[in-house]
């Protein structure tokens, strides 16, 4: 799967797009964290809740449940939502 990395997180990946795999969005994020340590905690808190200003889109549809199954061919967009001035 191809994952679009937003600008605030590119200091971790060094790229705007990375390939990742996983049966769920949660598994994809753990894989990203294994490769880019620390990146998951910036997006998901210690109670496994998506942080307030982070959004995930799978094939263009927003995903609210990290355990939602993935087929393995999706495009994942990680988006920073507005957070003020």
């Amino acid at each position: 799967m191809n994952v679009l990395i937003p600008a605030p997180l590119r200091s971790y990946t060094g790229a705007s797009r990375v390939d990742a795999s996983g049966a769920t969005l949660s598994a994809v994020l753990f894989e990203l964290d294994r490769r880019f340590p620390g990146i998951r905690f910036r997006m998901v808190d210690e109670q496994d809740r998506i942080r307030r200003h982070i959004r995930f889109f799978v094939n263009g549809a927003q995903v609210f449940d990290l355990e939602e199954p993935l087929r393995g061919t999706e495009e994942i967009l990680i988006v920073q939502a507005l957070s003020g001035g």
Partner: protein
Amino acid sequence: MATRKTSPAKAVRAPRARSATRRRAAHPRSAPRVVVLVATRKGAWLVHGDTSRKAWRLAGPHFLGHIVSHVVLDPRDGRTLLAAAKTGHLGPTVFRSTDLGASWQEAARPPAFAKVPAGEKGRAVDHTFWLTPGHASEPQVWYAGTSPQGVFRSEDGGATWEPLAGLNDDPQYRKWMGTQQDGTPDGPKLHSIIVDPRDAAHLYLGMSGGGVHESTDRGRTWVPLVKKGLEVVEGFDAANLAFHDPHCVRLCPSNPDRLYQQNHCGLYRIDRPSNEWVRIGRNMPQKIGDIGFPLVVHPRDADTVWMFPMDGTTVWPRTSPDGVPSVYATRNGGSTWQRLAAGMPKGKAWWTVKRQAMTSDGSDPIGLYFGTTSGELWMSRDGGRRWSCIASHLPEIYAVEAAQVAARR
């Protein structure tokens, strides 16, 4: 771990830089210099002084765009920095530098509360607010305070952090902490983590709100230090710790049995083993009052304290009273106070100085520093008698720390 290089340093000079430059040549390269660590809402800056503390070089920004709550130099090695940061979008983390900010590494496990079982509503750290180096005998230990309120300990120099459950998960403490609404506008703060220089196991901390607390077992268990003397907002029950709001607590290094507290309801001193706080702020000029955020104690004289008054009347503007900024000092433990404002604007200056944004540098004569929410950094080389602005146009300043470093940067 993400490694970040700092941005190129931008050099600025304070007034009278030419004479300072001439004077610099007379000092050996190894003479102690002061570095001021400035944490702001949009990044961090390191402000390097020359040996005379008259010329200053602004280095940064570090972490531009990050909300940086605190940057602290480890006095045990003189070169390790920890920075507590988050952004508007991204979760909280801690960065560590072992070369005075030339490079940074992110903590492998930043402060985070324990995960609760499914179905329960657990807390998540919004930001790490406070950092305190551990005791001199425990060179890798650090403590952190967070919002919402929690206390954390690192035993590996800040790389990984563990929650101290004896406070974070204690049902009584959770009641005293209250909810997200029971704190400052950007969340309740656990702050003023203090390590007794005589005893690594003896700690204090402040909860805003929730009172001052003490541990004698390295933070495993805590007891309140709010027995007598402290006032709360009119109409509330002083026996309920949830209503106590310490803004800043400082221990006197020259007399560790003495602490001062700037509280939402006045300025206090306590001399242990007594549990009674004395409202020394009653001796401040009535027109000025004894409300403020920060407090600075003299590192070698437990009778000398500086405070920065703010307007705590009506709707709590929290600006300098009447728009006239000033520092007040006591040289006798709070019996009398002296106004120290030479060099500051004489009016129309609506400054706010937050609880972490005023400090001293340990030099002799003592250097004092404070940062304003309007992005100005001020300092005095003579214990507050004369002040000058050494940096301006910075973002809102959250915290200011100062330390002596041996090598020129």
